[in-house]
């Protein structure tokens, strides 16, 4: 083996090492003030396929490479969902490091696919922040994702003659790391500035 081959092997090993440590490093200990960090307990998400507000598929792979905050809800929800989305919009505004802004994605996943079509979701999420992603899918396609994230949801009084039904749902904001693992959660009520500080810590420490 000549010197250049050794150098190449060393370089490959170095790059591989960095790649591995980058994924493993995604779960380094971080003290969060507003949420729970799973650390080494982070769990890989299963495969899933939703549709985003532009009618494009949203899959587990779509989440890779970013720190993703997922909120589940429905647009006909008057109180909790708009407040949580506004909190996430305020959090985004409060992030002052452009690298952190670039590393964080916000998703609103509707558990009310019949009323929340991609068109409805498009006007809804962009009202809060044009960068937010809205997504949904039929119930059987939502379940792999909601189950893996511990999101409970059920219709209340949904009948053919009641278009104004409610949907009970979990209000936590879920954190999915760049390896598409469920890495932490932020329980309600949410504080935008605390969320911004936590996301900055997470992105900068990892």
């Amino acid at each position, binding site marked *: 083996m000549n010197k250049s081959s050794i150098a190449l092997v060393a370089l490959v090993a170095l790059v591989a090492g960095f790649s591995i440590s980058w994924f493993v490093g995604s779960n380094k200990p971080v003290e969060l003030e507003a949420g729970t960090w799973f650390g080494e307990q982070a769990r890989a998400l299963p495969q899933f396929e939703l549709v985003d507000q532009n009618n494009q598929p949203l899959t587990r792979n779509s989440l890779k490479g970013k720190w993703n905050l997922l909120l589940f809800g429905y647009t006909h929800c008057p*109180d909790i969902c708009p407040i949580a989305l506004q909190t996430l919009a305020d959090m985004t505004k409060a992030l002052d490091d452009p690298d952190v802004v670039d590393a964080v994605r916000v998703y609103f996943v509707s558990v009310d696919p019949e009323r929340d079509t991609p068109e*409805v979701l498009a006007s*809804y999420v962009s*009202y809060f922040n044009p960068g937010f992603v809205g997504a949904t899918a039929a119930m059987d396609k939502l379940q792999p994702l909601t189950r893996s994230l511990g999101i409970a949801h059920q219709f209340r009084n949904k009948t053919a003659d009641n278009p104004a039904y*409610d949907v009970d*749902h979990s209000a936590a904001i879920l954190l999915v790391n760049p390896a598409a693992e469920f890495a932490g959660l932020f329980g309600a009520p949410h504080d935008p500035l605390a969320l911004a500080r936590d996301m900055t810590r997470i992105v900068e420490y990892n």
Partner: protein
Amino acid sequence: MQRLILALLLVVPIAAQADLEISDAWINNLPASVPVRAGYLTLHNPTQQAVTIVGATSAGFAGVEIHRSVSQDGMLRMEAVPKLHIEAGATVRLAPGGLHLMMKQPAQPTSPGELYRITFEYADGSRQSLQIEVRK
């Protein structure tokens, strides 16, 4: 005497129940595609007796109800509050994540800065109106 009766008739419905002090009233604006809005306000009862709100209306909305967001079994759900009691001297806040006005089907899309009128009906039949501002 007739004048006195007339005067009493005019005065009594208003005096039957002293007004609540209502502050911090606002409607959380949402895009036109959403047919509901939440309204928030603070109700203070400065009187010596409990007051009960039994209904609410607003000309700009098909219906107004008092709801409460309740956490149960790891989920949040909304429950109707058909009667809202405010004890003598008490303050009740309708605020995000808890009690709120569920305002259904705005006649027009709402926008920040607009003022709507809400009328509360009390258990004794008296009414009280207030202005509430749409905010983002």
